């Protein structure tokens, strides 16, 4: 086979291949091996960070599909996470259902809520849809707040949850969680990649680019838009459920609009229409506050006190959104692609046309 450039595929068969070039296969294999051996040589704190990244990634993948591939802008992701969290609370503390059942239930309920939240998308596009999802977010959070006020220890304190157990294994230690989450993430990512490279993915991208034309070509808008919402909500709900078990507490205060925006930031930073981008973005945004914290070590001690650190951490997410949208709209995935292309074309370099004298 001729040496095709990294980003260009010359046949349908090739286009459907997930990792067409040998070096990509090697890279992914190495990455998985590194991921498996990582906990052995790292501190518990680092493992905990990785767990947070994995949890965020699952949710980010959901949003990547909804907004990145299907083009339906949604500010309601925090609400879906809340659905997962509160389903966990209700089913595990009140009904004492086992972990597997709760996880499955969270997924199903998430799918159902996703269906409901997706209904406005059949009527609205663009900004109006974003506003509908905003309204949905507040509705769900309102319900959650009411629940917490009524059934929780108090309106503001969280409801605690025990560690889950699968068969003989109790997920209490961070390292055990690490492997569980890694496995789950790999499965979910593989699932998403497959969704995206087959019919649903193509339908979504058609809807994103020009939904009227897609409809004219026979893409069932209702079915695929709702499917996108359902997948997104399911993944977010699963993520929320796992987060609840991981942190052993659920409180409605966590599910703010800012959290939804954080997830949006993940896919903006990572790259909107890309699975790899979602993962990269999730890791970047999750680690960002910790990075800033580390950065503050170099600044005068006094800056740590008061709310400056917190303020900067908050602002950093917003700044990332702005900077990436202005200067790198296709995100980190695009940066990676450029690196790939550079090495692929080396030693030849693509020379832009000489500009005419002005």
């Amino acid at each position, binding site marked *: 086979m001729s040496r095709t450039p990294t980003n260009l595929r010359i046949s349908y068969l090739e286009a459907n291949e997930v990792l067409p070039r040998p070096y990509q296969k090697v890279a992914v294999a190495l990455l998985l091996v590194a991921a498996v051996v990582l906990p052995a040589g790292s501190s518990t704190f680092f493992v905990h960070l990785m767990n947070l990244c994995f949890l965020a990634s699952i949710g980010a993948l959901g949003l990547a599909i909804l907004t990145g591939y299907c083009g339906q802008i949604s500010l309601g992701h925090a609400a879906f996470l809340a659905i997962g969290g509160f389903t966990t609370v209700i089913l595990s503390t009140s009904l004492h259902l086992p972990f597997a059942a709760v996880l499955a239930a969270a997924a199903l309920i998430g799918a159902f809520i996703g269906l409901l939240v997706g209904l406005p998308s059949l009527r609205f596009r663009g900004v109006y849809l974003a506003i509908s999802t905003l309204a949905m977010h507040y*509705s769900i959070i309102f319900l959650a707040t009411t629940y917490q006020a009524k059934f929780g220890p108090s309106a503001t304190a969280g409801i605690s949850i025990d560690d889950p157990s699968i068969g003989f294994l109790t997920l209490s230690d961070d390292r055990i969680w690490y492997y569980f989450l890694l496995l789950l993430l790999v499965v979910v990512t593989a699932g998403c990649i497959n969704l995206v490279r087959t019919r649903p993915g193509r339908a979504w991208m058609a809807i994103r680019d020009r939904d009227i034309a897609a409809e004219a070509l026979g893409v069932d808008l209702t079915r695929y838009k709702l499917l996108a919402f359902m997948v997104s909500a399911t993944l977010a709900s699963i993520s929320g459920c796992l987060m609840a078990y991981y942190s052993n507490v659920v409180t409605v205060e966590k599910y703010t609009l800012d959290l939804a925006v954080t997830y949006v930031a993940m896919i903006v930073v990572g790259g909107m229409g890309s699975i790899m981008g979602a993962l990269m973005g999730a890791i970047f945004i999750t680690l960002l506050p910790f990075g800033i914290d580390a950065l503050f070590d170099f600044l005068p001690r006094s800056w740590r006190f008061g709310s400056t650190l*917190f303020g900067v951490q908050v602002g950093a997410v917003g700044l990332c959104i702005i900077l990436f949208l202005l200067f790198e709209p296709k995100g980190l995935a695009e940066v990676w692609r450029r690196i790939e292309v550079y090495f692929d074309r080396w030693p030849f370099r693509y020379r832009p046309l000489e500009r005419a004298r002005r």
Partner: protein
Amino acid sequence: MEFAATVAILTCTYSLLAAGVVILYKAGRVVNFAHGELAIVGGYVFYTSSLMTDASSPWLAVLGAVIFSVVMGGSIYLGMMRRVIGEPFYVPILLTIGIAIVLKSAIIVIWRANHVTIDIGVAPALRLAGGATLSYMDIASVVLTIAFFVTLYLFLSRTRTGVQFRGTAENPLLASQRGVNVNFVLSLAWVIATFAATLSGVLYGGRAFLSTESVTIGLAGLTAALVGGLDSLRGAVVGGFVVALAQYLTVRLIDPVLSEALPFLILLVMMTIRPWGLFGTVEELDRV
């Protein structure tokens, strides 16, 4: 009478916010999700500049607010919104969301998120029938709001610049071909909208307080704009009144806690029965 006073001032606050949202939508098809934050930051700026002048004359504070509007509004447009003009619809939305977060963090970092109340000229109060008290500030607020709206209306409908505004909003390329400096028109839109937001923030700061929580008035403002119609200024006034009235009644008659959530309830209802608002044009729904 106190009912009328409170609702009136709340209406002014929300209408000004809604007007800002509508102006930005009319000018650039942009829904500004940072409007609440802009208002509160503007309020803080006003507060800080009033501190510098001994509170005896509010004029320096007003000047501070105007400078803030010009600088902030102008730089948001020239630095950010202008660069994303051709891009898909979600880019400006996400950009404004990013700006909202940065502004919120500015409140935390610069003003330490202190609860701040603006009070200038509270002392000489007017006692009205029914035991209500109105400060001069309250009266000035209402007067200013009315003046703002009247000026804006005249500007947009009677002057050539107003017609240029609307034309530029619809088709910046064509406007540029016909000699309009599109950058100037759109910057002006942002400056006016920021000024309206600042005014609203000052009003709110005078009646309630400014902090990171108060940015939720942005949602109320957005709801008011939607109720009235995203492309209708007269709708902004009506929408502001509707939201203000609903909130007041909810606090008094139903449940104060619910009043926080009320704007989004109204939002839900509007999106279901009449998404283009009371005075908006239906075609706008597809234009996005």
